[in-house]
């Protein structure tokens, strides 16, 4: 029997399948390369000036809401009791709703991104993404773990949570934040049902492991926090709080750049359930609208 007995297209098909099989062989063992730091591993660029656009929860974000107004927050009894101790006299008296005498506890990490602020994001070093705010004048440091800049979006950020809750000196308003780039999907066994990537080695179920896909987000877990406020009218969170954030960039229909930060506050002390919000920031060309406003330590800690 010779190959000539088969139609040309069948011979071509056989050759393609055989070639595909050959390409699907495990790659030769190569020495592991050091992973890039957080900056060089970045899935997208978050640096620059951004402004929070306040179209939701306006009277809880742009103003100080009425004392005792904790609508939407899953406060427990202890949390409500503490929130009811808010004293408007300390924050502007009769005009406290629009007073700019705002307690610094409202700018703690768990409430910060919900406040009406501009943020400036820059790299302090290759593994430290710095986030500064104009109002409240806060600085956060989002620490990447050396040699571990990536995680898959399907995995919980448990390891990062443990790192954030670890010993990092005295607790603070901004706590200690651990950051990781979450790649959208990696084609491994768990993504088998999603099908193989185009033009890649391997067939169904034999796709290349650890192949990054486009997209992704920045996950940040924060712990080691001092007590603070979820809202500027004294709605509290406690020292056991840990915060999980996901930063997702996107474009609007005109090509304008935005990021959305989805914030999950887990506080076993004052919340009955996680408190989940999302806030949207629009990119600005420069820092010309940067307007520092200090917060006030009205009540001594």
């Amino acid at each position, binding site marked *: 029997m010779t190959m000539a007995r088969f*139609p*040309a*297209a*069948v011979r*071509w*098909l056989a050759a*393609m*399948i055989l070639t595909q099989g050959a390409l699907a062989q495990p790659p030769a063992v190569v020495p592991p390369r050091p992973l890039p730091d957080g900056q060089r591993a970045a899935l997208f660029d978050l640096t620059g000036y951004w*402004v*929070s*656009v*306040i*179209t*939701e*929860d*306006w*009277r809880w974000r*742009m*103003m*100080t*809401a009425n004392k005792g107004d904790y*609508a*939407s*927050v*899953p406060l427990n009894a202890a949390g409500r009791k503490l929130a009811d101790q808010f004293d408007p006299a300390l924050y502007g008296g009769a005009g406290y*709703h*629009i007073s*700019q005498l705002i307690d610094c506890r409202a700018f703690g990490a768990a409430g910060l991104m919900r406040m*009406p602020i*501009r943020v400036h994001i820059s790299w302090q070093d290759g593994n430290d993404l710095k986030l500064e705010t104009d*109002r409240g004048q806060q600085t956060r440091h989002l620490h990447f773990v050396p040699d571990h800049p990536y995680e898959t*979006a*399907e995995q919980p950020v448990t390891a990062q949570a443990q790192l954030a809750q670890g010993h990092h000196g005295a607790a603070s308003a901004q706590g200690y934040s651990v950051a990781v780039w*979450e790649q*959208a*999907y990696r084609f491994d066994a768990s993504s088998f*049902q*999603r*099908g*193989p990537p*185009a033009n890649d080695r391997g067939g169904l179920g034999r796709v290349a492991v650890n192949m990054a*896909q*486009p*997209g*992704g*987000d920045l*996950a940040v877990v924060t712990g080691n926090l001092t007590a603070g406020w979820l809202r500027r009218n004294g709605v509290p969170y406690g020292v056991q709080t840990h915060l999980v954030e*996901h930063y*997702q960039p996107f474009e*609007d*229909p005109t090509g304008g750049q*935005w990021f*959305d930060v*989805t914030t999950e506050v887990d506080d076993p002390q004052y919340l009955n359930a996680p408190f*989940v*919000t*999302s*806030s949207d920031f629009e990119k600005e060309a420069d820092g010309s*609208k940067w*307007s520092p406003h200090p917060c006030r330590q009205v009540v001594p800690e």
Partner: protein
Amino acid sequence: MQVHLRPLHWAAGVIAWLLLAQPAVHAQSMLDGYWNLLLDEDAPEYGAGPEEGDYAGLPVTAASRDVAQSWDPEQLTVPEMQCQPFPSTYGPRAVTIMRVWEDRDPYNNQQTQIETWIAFSAQHRHIYMTPQPEPPPVTPDSWQGYSTGRWVGNVLWVHTDRLKAAFIARNGLPLDDRSTMDERFFRYADVLTDVMMISDPQYLTRPVIESKEYWRAPDGIMEPYPCVPNDETPRPKGVLPMHLPGVVVHDGPLAYGMPLQAAQGGAETMFPEYEDVMQSLPPNPAPKAGHKR
């Protein structure tokens, strides 16, 4: 050498193409399932609706305010309007559950549609995944509109138009039938976020951006939504409750200490610097008899 392909050759080639040229499908299954709406933002929208006269943070036009000023919540009791569904621009603002599923072409496994069903008012959306033909030119406007979608990495981009005239808040703020909506859906573990950007050349000076969260419900239950109009409030047939513009002054926002000028909304109220502007606004007037709160 000239090659002549017979039908068998063509068939073999097609099979080979199907085997070897599988399209990338990215994250296309990540939204499937049941999702409970989270109620941790904009509490009034999930209850009785925002206060009449409270438009703060919304980039509304003067025409929009005029329409809202003439709106009367009694309209919701008119039988013809009792079962009116929420438009897709407002759909997630309900204490409800959403189901998401996908449709695939059985031959090439391409995702052809993503469908969503929100239990409250039985809101059923079809998101036609590109490439799809444009809708016929006579496609009527509908509450859910005509939606097309595409994946950009792990983010689902959706554009919706052909919407019926509706509302952007349940206090009378209108949306024109030329309004459009662009959405970005993304998911982290058990949390799904829908960023909604709503544009309206008639009633908005710039797009409104809102983002809604859902929590995965592994054991979700989709209840039916029967709606039967009743005569809740006796009134002569054909009467539509409304106010003449300027007759009623809504001062409900006073209860929150909100400057009435801020409550009028406008794009400037969307940005942090409006905190500074509020310091110099005239004081609120004392409520007068006849004002609606």
